C-alpha cells in the first residue's frame, strides 16, 4: 500500500470512529435525558450528569469535524512536502490521543484525575502545537506547556484546599466529586473562597481567561489548523468544565454569587483585552485566537450572570463558539495554505481565490460576531439579557463597548481579507472534499442552532443550569 493511501486510510478510519462516537454520544444523551438520572459507573470511577453530557457532546461534535477536515488537510500538507508521510501517521495517533484525553475529562468522577487528564491534554497537544518543528512552533509549544503547567499547578493547590476542607470540615476523605458534593454543605467558606480563586486562576489559565491567556494566541497560531480548531473549540471549554465542577462544590458554602463575581471579573477583563488585541492584529490565526479569548470571556460573563439565566446562555455560547471557531480555524487553514502566509496584510480577495472556503469564512465571521440568523446571536443576546436582568448595567455597557470593539477589529480584518482584489499572480484553487464536508457539517450546527434550539438540547442546558446553580 502506498504511503499516501495509507494516510488517507488512517484519516477515513478516524472519521468513521468519530462518527460512531458522535452517534453514541447523541444516543447516550437522548437516553440520559429520557431517564434523567445521574450515572455513576465503574465502581464510582466515572460520573456522568448533564454537565458532563453537554461537554461530551461539544467535544465529540468538534472532534468529528476536525477528523473530517484532517483528511484533506494532512493530505495536502504531505503533498506540499511540509509533513513527511511518517509524521502524518504520527499526527493521527496524536490526534486520537488528544481527543481521548479531552473526552475522558467530563466523564471522570475523581477531581484529581480530572486534573491529571487536563494536564495530559496539555502535554499531548504540545506535540501537535510544535508539530512543524520550526522555531516559532517550538517556542509556542514551550510557552504552552510551561504556562499551562504553572496554571494547573495552582489549580492543584486549589484542589488540595478543597480536599482539606472536605476532610476537615465535612469528614469526606475522598476526592470523588460525588462524595465531596454530598458533604459540600459543611465546607469552610473561608477556605472555599481561597480555593476557588486558585481554581479559577489555575484552570482559567488553561481556559484562556485574561490575563493568563498569553499562551493561547501563540499555541493557536502555531498549531496545525485542525488542532487549532480543537484547542479553541474544545480544550479551553474543558478547563471551564473543571472550573464549573468546583463552582458547584462551592455553591452550598459560599453561594453562587461569589463565583459569579469572579467570573464577571475574568470575563470583563478577557473581552476588554481581546478587543484591543484583535484591533491591532496582523496574523490571521492569532486574530482568531484572540477572538477565542473574547468568547471565553463572554462565556465567563454569562456564567457570572448565572442566577438570571446566564448559565444557560453561557453554556450555549460555549457550544456555539466551539462550533463556529472550529469552522473559522479550518477556513483559516485553507487560507494559510493558499497564501503561504499567516499575515493578513498579504491576503486579499479570498472569496475569489477559494470561493467555498472564502464564503464559509465570511459567513462564519458573521456568525462569530453574533449576527442573526446564526447561533451566537442567540447566545450573546441571552448573555446580555441576563446581564440586564441581573441589573449589571455598567458591566453590560462595558460589555457592549468591548464587543463592538472586537467586532470592529474583526470586521476590518475579515472584510479586507475576504473581499478585495486577489493578488494577480494567484490562481483560484479548489478546496478538498473533506474540507467542504467539514464546513457544511459545522455550518448546519451554526445555522440550525440559530434558527431553533432542539428541545432535548434545551432541556440539557436547563438541567446544566440547575446543576450549576445548585437548584
Amino acid at each position, binding site marked *: 500500500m502506498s504511503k499516501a493511501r495509507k494516510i488517507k486510510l488512517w484519516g477515513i478510519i478516524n472519521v468513521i470512529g468519530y462518527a460512531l462516537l458522535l452517534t453514541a454520544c447523541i444516543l447516550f444523551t437522548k437516553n440520559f435525558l429520557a431517564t434523567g438520572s445521574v450515572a455513576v459507573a465503574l465502581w464510582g470511577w466515572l460520573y456522568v450528569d448533564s454537565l458532563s453530557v453537554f461537554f461530551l457532546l461539544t467535544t465529540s461534535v468538534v472532534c468529528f469535524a476536525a477528523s473530517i477536515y484532517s483528511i484533506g488537510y494532512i493530505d495536502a500538507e504531505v503533498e506540499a512536502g511540509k509533513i513527511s508521510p511518517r509524521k502524518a501517521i504520527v499526527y493521527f495517533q496524536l490526534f486520537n490521543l488528544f481527543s481521548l484525553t479531552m473526552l475522558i475529562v467530563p466523564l471522570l468522577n*475523581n477531581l*484529581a*484525575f480530572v486534573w*491529571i487528564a487536563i*494536564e*495530559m491534554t496539555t*502535554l499531548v497537544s*504540545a*506535540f501537535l502545537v*510544535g508539530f512543524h*518543528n*520550526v*522555531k*516559532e512552533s*517550538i*517556542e*509556542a*509549544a*514551550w*510557552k504552552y*506547556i*510551561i504556562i499551562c*503547567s*504553572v496554571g494547573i*499547578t495552582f489549580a*492543584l*493547590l486549589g484542589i*488540595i*484546599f478543597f*480536599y*482539606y476542607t472536605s*476532610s*476537615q470540615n465535612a469528614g469526606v*476523605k*475522598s*476526592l470523588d466529586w460525588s462524595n465531596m458534593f454530598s458533604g459540600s454543605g459543611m465546607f469552610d467558606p*473561608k*477556605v472555599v473562597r*481561597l480555593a476557588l480563586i486558585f481554581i479559577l486562576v489555575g484552570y482559567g489559565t488553561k481556559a484562556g481567561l485574561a490575563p493568563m491567556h498569553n499562551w493561547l*494566541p*501563540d499555541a493557536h*497560531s*502555531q498549531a496545525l489548523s485542525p488542532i487549532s480548531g480543537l484547542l479553541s473549540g474544545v480544550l479551553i471549554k474543558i478547563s471551564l468544565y473543571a472550573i464549573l465542577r468546583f463552582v458547584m462544590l462551592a455553591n452550598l458554602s459560599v453561594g453562587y454569587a461569589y463565583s459569579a463575581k469572579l467570573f464577571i471579573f475574568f470575563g470583563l477583563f478577557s473581552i476588554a483585552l481581546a478587543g484591543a*488585541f484583535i484591533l*491591532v*492584529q496582523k496574523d490571521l490565526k*492569532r486574530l482568531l485566537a484572540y477572538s477565542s479569548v473574547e468568547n471565553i470571556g463572554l462565556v465567563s460573563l454569562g456564567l457570572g450572570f448565572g442566577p438570571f439565566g446566564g448559565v444557560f446562555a453561557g453554556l450555549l455560547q460555549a457550544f456555539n463558539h466551539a462550533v463556529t471557531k472550529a469552522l473559522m480555524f479550518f477556513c483559516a487553514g485553507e487560507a494559510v495554505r493558499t497564501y503561504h502566509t499567516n499575515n493578513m496584510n498579504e491576503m486579499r480577495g479570498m472569496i475569489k481565490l477559494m470561493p467555498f472556503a472564502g464564503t464559509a469564512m465570511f459567513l462564519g465571521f458573521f456568525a462569530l460576531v453574533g449576527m442573526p440568523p446564526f447561533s451566537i446571536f442567540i447566545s450573546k443576546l441571552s448573555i446580555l439579557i441576563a446581564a440586564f436582568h441581573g441589573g449589571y448595567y455598567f458591566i453590560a455597557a462595558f460589555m457592549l463597548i468591548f464587543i463592538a470593539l472586537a467586532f470592529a477589529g474583526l470586521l476590518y480584518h475579515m472584510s479586507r481579507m475576504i473581499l478585495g482584489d486577489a493578488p494577480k499572480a494567484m490562481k483560484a484553487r479548489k478546496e478538498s472534499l473533506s474540507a467542504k464536508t467539514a464546513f457544511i457539517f459545522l455550518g448546519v450546527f451554526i445555522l440550525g442552532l440559530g434558527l431553533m434550539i432542539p428541545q432535548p438540547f434545551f432541556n440539557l442546558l436547563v438541567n446544566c443550569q440547575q446543576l450549576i446553580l445548585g437548584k
Partner: protein
Amino acid sequence: MTLAFILSGFLVVTFVLVICKRITALIRAFRIESVFLFLYTLYMGITQRHADLFIVCGLIFALKAVIIPFVLLRITRRINVEEDLGLLVNPQLSMVIALIFAYLSYLFAHKAMSLVNLAESAAFIVSITAVCIGFFIMVSRMKALGQIIGLLVMENGIFLAAGSIAGGMPFFIEIALFFDVFVFVVIVEVFVYKVNRLFTHIDTSKMKSLKG
C-alpha cells in the same frame, strides 16, 4: 522536634534554590529538597502508621530524588549548555524577595486560612513558601531548565501542603500525580532537546518571536 528539623531543612534548601547560579547546583539543591520531602512523608507515615504513606515516600525518593534529577542532569550533559542559569534578578535581591514570600505565606496561613495547629501551620507555611519560590525561579531564571525546576519545586511545595493540611492525598491519587510528574518531565525533556536543536540555546528569555 523531628518535624521541626525536617521543615527547617526543607525551608533552608528552598532558600538555597533561590541563590543558585548554576544549573547543576540548582538540580542538586532540588534533589536535596526532594529528600526533605521524602523525610517529611516518612515522618508522617511513621507517626500516622499508614502503610500507603510508606509507598508514597518510596516513590518520592525514587522519582524526585533519583530519577528526575538524573534526567535533568542528563539533559545538561547531552546538550552541553553553559552552566550559567541566567539570573534576571540577582541572588541578593532574590533572597529578599524569598523572605517576603515567606512572610506572605505566613500571613496567608494565619489570616486567610486561620490555621491554629502549630505543626500543621508550620508545614503549610513552608509549603506555600516553596510554591512561591518555585514560581519565582520560573519567573527570574532565563534557562529552560530553571523553569522546569521551578515548576518541580512548586509541585514539591504542593505535595508538602497536601501532607501538611490534608494529611496526604488518597493513595491512588498520589500515585497518579507521580505518574503525571514523570510524564511531564519526560515530555519537557523532549522539548528541551528540540529547543536546543533549533535555537542552539535554551535561553527562554530570548524566545520572543511571538508577540502581541
